[in-house]
């Protein structure tokens, strides 16, 4: 149910004004996307015209200085790192919220929640630094060289976990208590109650958390640049180094000129495309699985 279903039904002037203002603000948020997309297109356009759209997918490799512009390896790099992290962080994040709500002793909940909130704000540089100095050498001892898809997934998981956990926490808190009482009165075990009633009832909030998580995972730049190894190749196993689209932009933008620079903007543009596909997919899944 919504408060203002229809402007014309509203009798009050103030209300109408309110709706227009709100609509304007929402439109502003939408326009921002258009601005950014437009900006990216403007910058990427020379590359597409000069280099040719197909070169980005059919060239031999990514060596822009020599005139090779294949970006597919980095698309895979971004996707694999993101998928790995989301697959790991989603259950962990939801479990963390469930733990907070149903298992942890009361005195423990507040400090635990504070810690998660804190972690949401730690700069990616700090995670990246930790990854570079502590995690990567560890992985390197296991299987050289160390900077790898695995390191990327681990750091990303740690980074997006707070986002998912906080959103899940907020949405679990809002599950109506009548469901909980009903389930408990039925003698359902804690786990069944959570699995079959609480989590389905919180789907909307959980999926928002996952979308924010996906967003942060795929958009993460600095930490990825520091731990992934940045070799342009499709990783064949977890220990292979790889490069994400974002790391590519950050790594080369500072020194890129002309076509190279435009090609980097094109990778940014491509990233948006990947994100749009992901978001639409999640949206579709959510639509199918929500009980009205």
């Amino acid at each position, binding site marked *: 149910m919504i408060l203002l279903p229809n402007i014309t039904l509203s009798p009050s002037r103030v209300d109408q004004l309110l709706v227009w203002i709100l609509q304007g603000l929402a439109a502003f948020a939408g326009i921002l996307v258009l601005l950014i997309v437009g900006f990216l297109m403007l910058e990427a356009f020379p590359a597409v015209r000069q280099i040719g759209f197909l070169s980005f997918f059919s060239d031999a490799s990514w060596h822009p200085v020599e005139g090779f512009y294949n970006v597919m390896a980095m698309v895979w790099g971004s996707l694999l790192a993101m998928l790995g992290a989301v697959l790991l962080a989603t259950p962990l994040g939801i479990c963390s919220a469930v733990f907070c709500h149903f298992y942890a002793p009361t005195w423990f909940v507040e400090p635990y929640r504070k810690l998660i909130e804190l972690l949401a704000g730690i700069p990616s540089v700090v995670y990246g630094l930790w990854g570079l100095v502590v995690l990567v050498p560890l992985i390197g001892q296991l299987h050289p060289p160390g900077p790898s898809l695995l390191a990327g997934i681990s750091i990303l998981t740690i980074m997006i976990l707070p986002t998912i956990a906080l959103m899940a926490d907020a949405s679990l808190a809002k599950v109506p208590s*009548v469901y909980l*009482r009903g389930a408990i009165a*039925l*003698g359902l075990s804690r786990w*069944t109650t959570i699995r079959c009633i609480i989590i389905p009832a919180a789907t909307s909030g959980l999926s928002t958390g996952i979308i924010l998580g996906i967003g942060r995972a795929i958009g993460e730049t600095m930490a990825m640049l520091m731990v992934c190894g940045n070799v342009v190749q499709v990783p064949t196993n977890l220990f292979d180094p790889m490069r994400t689209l974002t790391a590519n932009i950050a790594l080369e933008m500072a020194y890129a000129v002309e076509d190279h620079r435009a090609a980097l903007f094109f990778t940014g543009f491509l990233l948006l495309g990947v994100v749009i596909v992901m978001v639409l997919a999640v949206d579709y899944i959510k639509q199918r699985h929500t*009980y*009205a």
Partner: protein
Amino acid sequence: MGGGTLVEAKDVLGMSARSTSRFQPWGPFEERSACCEPHPLIRAEKLSLYYGNTPAFEGVSWSIYQGCLTALVGPSGSGKTSFLTCLNRLTDLIPGCRVIGELSLGDLNVFAEQTDVLQLRRQVGMIFQKPNPFPLSIRKNLELPLREYGIIDRGRTDHLIEQTLNDVGLWREVQDRLDVPALRLSGGQQQRLCIARALILSPQVLLMDEPCSALDPLSSGVVEDLIARLRGQYTVVIVTHNLAQARRIADYASLFWVHDGVGQLIEEGPVSQIFETPQHDLTAAYISGVRG
């Protein structure tokens, strides 16, 4: 004054000097065939419940008989619902809630440390004031408790679901839409579904917290008839504000009252005694509508 003095009212059973001359708002009492053995199933000994330091009720000593329909009446805040929630230990959910005294269900000491709460709640079903089906399909609502207790075989669950829905008179209404969300049913249907959900585990005791008060008179009548039909098969404890309803369907009744913000059991006995020959002034006043 403690609970002890009030319990003494029980000893003056049969004295009806005051009530004979009293105004009778109810018409002649219709004798029902004794449906229950006077065999106490639930026993409370000086039971008190505190929310933090605030007492909800104090010193309740009382027996509830097996197979009977027992009504709890009394003004708001007199501890009826609190008493009800003690019977399946929903009190565990409330932080800072303490229970003092003895409460037993058959041989089981309800508040003992080693009591298996899930097992207890499986034997003691509960229906709430507002229907609270889970945000799942009708079938899943009923399947969930079954699966929880290990009945996974599809044929058996389907059979039990049909049988129970028949028992609550819902089968004909929903048989061809078992997979629609339960929240799309009408209020009365939802409440009958909740009763079915509680019955499907064949509990010994059924607790009902004003099960008809959130429903329209028509649905309320249907649900009330259903409750009346349960008499004999189950031990039903019902909290109601509807005195006429209590009188229509209950075998035993008790009156709770508030003294200085603390709930107390004023009088209990067969429904004929409470409504025809009340032993306590307050009871007489309450059922005649003078007070409360």
